[in-house]
């Protein structure tokens, strides 16, 4: 308790140094929380696309209903196929009409006869898509297979990149924050070198001397984490309408409340460790000397 009071007193006596430390920590955690949110969103988007029909096999115009049903049944039996949907000529016309309802000219010219029937297949795993594609191509009556491989692959790559860039940025910022807290606390400890020596001489353990500095670092870390989280949350609330419009039908919202709780808890713990370690190492160097 006394060590904590001592840490708070030191912070009060050097408010600008405290401000620098907390600001840097806030930026670090703001970026970390924002990236974790972005990664969550990207995963959502990826999952959305993964659950959509990923491969469409178009049948020849004169393909009979029976051969289409047989093809669908054959595909359903495959262990890596999650779902198979048959789209008949009539249903294809309805889809066409729906997507071109604003252009009557296009609608007039098209009838069900000229549209091919198709089956939409989704795989259990994104990695099985090439196999599904090859199976569909081998079926009789299939004229063309439309595989959105590039889109899925690209999304997957983006998500991986986002994770890597986010992690890299957070690690760099965390190292900078650590060094800033380390330097500031080391400066304070150096200015109290005489007091530290006296305390050592009157029987203080190294731990007793380190404690206030560790608490100071922890306070910087935890305050930075809390402020970073609040800034991230405020930004999210502000940007929600824009994000909703951007992602369209992909249901990113509402984000589960537990996610924010875990995020804040992890942030506070990371701030505690980061600040505490910086404080401890800063004063350890001095005590060792």
């Amino acid at each position, binding site marked *: 308790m*006394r060590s904590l009071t001592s840490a708070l007193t030191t912070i009060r006596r050097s408010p600008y140094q405290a401000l620098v430390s907390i600001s840097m920590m806030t930026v670090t955690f703001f970026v970390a929380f924002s990236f974790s949110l972005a990664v969550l969103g990207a995963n959502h988007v990826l999952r959305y696309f993964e659950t959509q029909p990923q491969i469409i096999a178009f049948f020849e115009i004169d393909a009979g209903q029976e051969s289409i049903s047989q093809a669908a049944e054959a595909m359903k039996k495959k262990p890596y196929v999650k779902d198979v949907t048959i789209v008949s000529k009539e249903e294809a016309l309805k889809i066409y009409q729906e997507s071109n309802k604003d252009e009557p000219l296009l609608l007039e010219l098209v009838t069900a006869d000229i549209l091919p029937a198709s089956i939409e297949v989704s795989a259990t795993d994104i990695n099985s898509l090439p196999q599904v594609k090859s199976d569909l191509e081998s079926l009789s009556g299939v004229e063309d297979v439309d595989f959105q491989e590039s889109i899925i692959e690209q999304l997957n790559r983006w998500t991986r990149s986002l994770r890597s860039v986010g992690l890299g940025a957070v690690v760099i910022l965390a190292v900078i924050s650590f060094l800033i807290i380390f330097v500031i606390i080391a400066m304070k400890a150096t200015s109290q070198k005489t*007091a530290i020596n*006296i*305390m*050592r*001489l*009157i*029987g*203080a*353990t190294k731990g007793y001397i380190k404690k206030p500095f560790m608490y100071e670092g922890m306070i910087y870390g935890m305050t930075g984490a809390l402020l970073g989280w609040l800034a991230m949350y405020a930004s999210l609330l502000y940007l929600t309408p824009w994000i909703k419009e951007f992602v369209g039908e992909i249901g990113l919202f509402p984000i589960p409340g537990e996610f924010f709780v875990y995020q804040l808890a992890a942030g506070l713990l990371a701030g505690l460790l980061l600040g505490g370690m910086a404080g401890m190492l800063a004063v350890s160097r001095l005590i060792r000397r």
Partner: protein
Amino acid sequence: MLTFDHVTKQFTEDSYGVRDITFEIEPGEFVFITGPSGSGKTTLMRLMTREYTPTEGEIHLEDLPVSALKNSQLHELRRRIGVVFQDYRLLTDLNVWENIALPLYIIGKKQAEIEERVTDLLKLVELTDKALLFPRQLSGGEAQRISIARALATGPGIIFADEPTGNLDNENAVRIGKLLHKINELGTTVLMATHDENVLGVFKGTRRMRLDNGKLVEDKGKKKASVSVRVKDAAPNSVEDDKNRQETGKKELETENDESAETQTEKPAKKGLLGDLLKKKSKED
């Protein structure tokens, strides 16, 4: 008991702090360590508190082998020794009360106990009214008395005062000497490094170890304490009482010789005795 057994501290090839020093100090003794500047008085203290490690020889404080202690055990040694410095070394950010309480916080005493102890010590050094002042607001003599109170806080068995009167005028120097004597009367072993003739003049007959160029050249009045314990006089009722007591003590000090001092020595020197005596005195008050 404090024992130095053929202790040498060599800094460089031809520079020695102390050379082949051997002595024993019994519990409850009052010992002056004298000698000119650079004779090794401070080195002796630093060896005792393990700021320096001896190049040769062994140091023992009671059951603790000082020279062989690990760094992680140093606090155990330092809690047994109260140190008083020439330049007081009070923490400037802390007030008088907090400075005295600091060693008690360090050893994890409870708040109520700390308050009681600090109050007793402030009474002992007669600075109760200065409890809330900061070191820069104190005179040299007052700062040194606070430094002594801090050294006594944990009830150490031994106190080493390194030139405690070096920055003080004659009157304050003698006063500090008497205060240390009073503490010795309460059972604490006191080692006082000084070359202040005024102080030495007041305490004739007290054991003196003289260092010169790092060597122990004289050890007079060996193992003889100077005064006997009178519990009722342990803490002053008032400044006036204390003055009277100090005058009496001074006369006794001046008249007693080594032989009589030896027969008067009845001082128990257990750690924490000072606290018990002060408590007893407080109850009497």
